[in-house]
């Protein structure tokens, strides 16, 4: 790759590049959605007559479909409120007060984020389920209590638990970025503490809170694991789609998919309209106000004790999962606490390559998807920000679009679009191949890596790249030696998040996996199906450990600079 070779014909290629990358992204991200919408109308589906609105008509006339839409919406609203109610006060507590063990506790409180959705759900099942540890514990104390972890409340509980972290982290980031001078100014003007909170601190926290709201709301909208495991007859759109597909009503599944996608876009637009400045990046940094020290010894001890209890409660699902993974098969029936503990399940898991394979699959697919998402992200960000124009804006839109698409929707769309061999319209048979799942992971990773890479590149002086170019460096060298090293924090932040998310993915995998690509989550589900709760828990622990390791590495290198 001599400089001379790269140079010839470069002008044409250079001006074509944005369009090429854009075309790839449209094909990968937008096209499947269009195909699904078209097939919902009976257009282009193999062997199915002319266009018809019949499926839509039956969708709109069925109360159960409306119910599912409505439930999806209010579950998402309530989940967001619940998550905010937990996360925001916690954020204030740990950012504004000097509590003994604050750093460690503060990190522990964020740990639910390292619990992939499915794993969190089964941990909740083991812990708070009808025959979970909690119920058994209480019953063994002679209390005649029983409850069922099903329906809306169960879903809400899991959502609140797994999503408050967004509010917590955003609040902390927002608070730490606030300039203490503003508070001091308010104090000098005679404002009371509550006035300061409501008139100074909270308004300035608004971008952070809006970001967390958007993230939480969109996540609940697409949430699948919790409704799938706990929902029973309580259907939300994601489970409704899977049920329709399972029942062979493909057309209806496509209609539901289209409707959920529309609901997601509408919500996104609405939330953005409410707060146009909505962005996940928090505001400019100043020196945050000093943390409040608790003066009395008692208060300090009380706060520390409270903090540890809280951390304990928040970590109970993790602990339960670990405990369950130590219960050998068929040894625990009616006792309050497992009578036998051992490493049998892990031995089982590690002894056969067939058992380990899903773990390897998850790792390589998540890694490949993340790597590809970083490459595409850097390409798209450079083309978009450095060239600008219409393709530039479209590129950025395409990178963020998948973020608004629930996983179930995209998985179904991809499966629908890529099950037909029609290369001239951009459709290839990818279903059943090794590639479709990593490709789906890639799409789901794009907004995660894209967001941080775009933000990072925006802050990077474009002159640096020009300097490298004028010094004789080609495009590749400029990216590798200048852009990537300088974007490192942004790349690691985005890639870490993408890797963790894809490692535990369940909703896309359940639609698209094959024998060769079955990931951990599918193995967990099938272990549960055949009563191997111990194995399922052991896989869950494995996933939790992998995610936590990635999260800690990520937090370590990127967190401080986010």
């Amino acid at each position, binding site marked *: 790759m001599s400089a001379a070779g790269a140079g010839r014909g470069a002008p044409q290629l250079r001006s074509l590049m944005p369009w090429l990358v854009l075309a790839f992204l449209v094909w990968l991200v937008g096209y499947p959605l269009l195909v699904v919408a078209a097939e919902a109308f009976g257009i282009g589906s193999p062997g199915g007559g002319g266009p018809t609105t019949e499926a839509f008509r039956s969708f709109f006339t069925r109360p*159960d479909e409306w119910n599912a839409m409505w439930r999806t919406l209010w579950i998402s609203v309530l989940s967001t409120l619940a998550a905010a109610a937990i996360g925001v006060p916690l954020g204030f507590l740990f950012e504004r007060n000097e509590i003994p063990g604050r750093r460690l506790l503060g990190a522990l409180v964020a740990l639910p984020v390292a619990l992939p959705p499915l794993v969190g759900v089964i941990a909740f099942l083991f812990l708070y389920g009808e025959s979970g540890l909690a119920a058994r514990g209480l019953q063994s104390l002679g209390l005649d209590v029983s409850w069922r972890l099903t329906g809306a409340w169960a879903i809400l509980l899991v959502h609140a638990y797994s999503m408050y972290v967004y509010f917590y982290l955003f609040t902390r980031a927002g608070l730490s970025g606030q300039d203490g001078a503003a508070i001091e100014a308010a104090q000098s003007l005679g404002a009371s503490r509550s006035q300061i909170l409501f008139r100074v601190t909270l308004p300035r926290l608004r971008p952070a809170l809006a970001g967390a709201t958007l993230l939480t709301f969109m996540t609940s909208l697409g949430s699948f694991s919790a409704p799938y495991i706990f929902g029973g007859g309580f259907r939300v759109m994601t489970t409704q789609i899977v049920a329709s597909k*399972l*029942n062979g009503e493909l057309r209806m599944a496509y209609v539901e998919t289209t409707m959920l996608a529309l609901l997601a876009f509408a919500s996104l637009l609405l939330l953005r309209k409410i707060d146009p400045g909505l962005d996940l990046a928090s505001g400019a940094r100043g020196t945050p106000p000093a943390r409040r020290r608790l003066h009395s010894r008692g208060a300090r001890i009380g706060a520390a004790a409270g903090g540890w209890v809280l951390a304990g409660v928040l970590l109970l699902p993790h602990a339960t999962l670990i405990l369950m993974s130590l219960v050998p098969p068929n040894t625990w029936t009616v006792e309050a606490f497992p009578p036998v503990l051992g490493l049998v399940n892990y031995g089982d898991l590690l002894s056969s390559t067939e058992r380990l394979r899903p773990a390897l699959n998850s790792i390589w697919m998540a890694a490949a998807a993340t790597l590809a998402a970083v490459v595409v992200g850097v390409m798209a960000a450079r083309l978009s920000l450095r060239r600008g124009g219409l393709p530039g804006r479209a590129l950025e839109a395409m990178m963020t679009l998948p973020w608004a698409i629930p996983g179930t929707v995209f998985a179904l769309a991809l499966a629908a679009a890529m*099950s037909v061999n029609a290369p001239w319209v951009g459709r290839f048979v990818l279903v059943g191949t090794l590639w479709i799942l990593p490709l789906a992971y890639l799409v789901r990773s794009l907004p995660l890596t894209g967001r941080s890479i775009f933000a990072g590149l925006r802050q990077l002086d474009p002159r640096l790249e020009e300097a490298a170019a004028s010094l004789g460096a080609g495009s590749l060298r400029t990216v590798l030696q200048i852009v990537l*090293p300088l974007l490192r924090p942004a790349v690691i932040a985005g890639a870490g998040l993408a890797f963790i998310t894809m490692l535990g993915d369940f909703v896309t995998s359940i639609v698209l996996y094959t*024998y060769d690509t079955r990931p951990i989550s599918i193995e967990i589900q*099938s272990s*549960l*199906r055949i*009563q191997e709760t111990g194995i399922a828990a052991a896989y869950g622990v494995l996933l939790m450990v992998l995610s936590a390791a990635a999260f800690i590495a990520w937090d370590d290198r990127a967190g401080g600079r986010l």
Partner: protein
Amino acid sequence: MRTALTRRSIIFCLAAAAAVAGCGGDGRTPLVVYSPHGRDLLTVVEQAYEQTRPDVDVRWLDMGSQEVYDRIRSERANPQADVWFGGPATILARGAAEGLLAPSEPSWAAALDPADRHPEGLYYTLYQTPTIIVYNRDAISEEEAPADWDDLLDERWHDEVVIRDPLASGTMRTIFGKVLSDSVVETGGTEAGFDWLRRLDGQTREYVHSPAVLHEKLTRQEGVLTLWEMTDTLSLIDRGAPIAYRFPASGTAVIQDSVGVVAGSGSHDEAEAFLDWLGSPEALGLAVREAFRLPARGDLDAEVLAPWVADVQSRLRRAEVDWQMIEENGAAWMAEWDRAVRGQGGG
């Protein structure tokens, strides 16, 4: 140092990917089996078959029988499975109608009842799975236990029934399908059937997501009754689960648990050979002894297979079932049940 770390992690990822991509190519012919039969039987079958055919690598994916159908249909453009191993004939019939199965001719086909064979050889019944009433024997004595389907609607069992979510389960689809087809046969419409199911829904404490949870709940008496099938139940009892079962007095639907070769399979001949072996006395003997499967072919000596086979065959009362009707209407019925019955029977 910092860049070295990144580089190392990238190299690791690529190496891991290469390792994974590289493995699995041990020279044996892969034979992919989609099956709802569960790890127990599948492991036994895999090991035994690979012993007789060392050149074949049996790879199975375990999932609900309805999921098998969904998956094979989704993969129609690029079939991944070679063998569709298990599931009620009604589901395989639907697959056959949609062209998901390819004809085969196992040597044991002649030993089957004509009703257990697809006329074009697309699938064959391998095992018979009676549907039964299962109860926790610590909570309910044998005398108290419901003797027939209708007894489940008794007031005393209110909120005591747990049911495997019927959408994903071929067994439950068969049981519900029989209720509805009987209703059509007897009353000319599904009204009565849905009414019965609505009452059952009223008795139902919970629909659970997997047989595992079903058994767990039954064991722990979070619900003491269920409608399920015999094979699974026998193996649980064998493992010491505190449960017992009853063949309903009025007769029961016996699920024709079938096998077929997936259309478009890359190794049709291997799949057919596997099918042929599955129905051999040797393989059936394994299934009977290790996994409590009741063979469909009638030419084997029950006593030789296992003592329990003869016992079951003597007690079992087969009901007349209009399989054709269930096959044709099953999907619509279940969709209707899902939207109009589930959760509506309470009160």
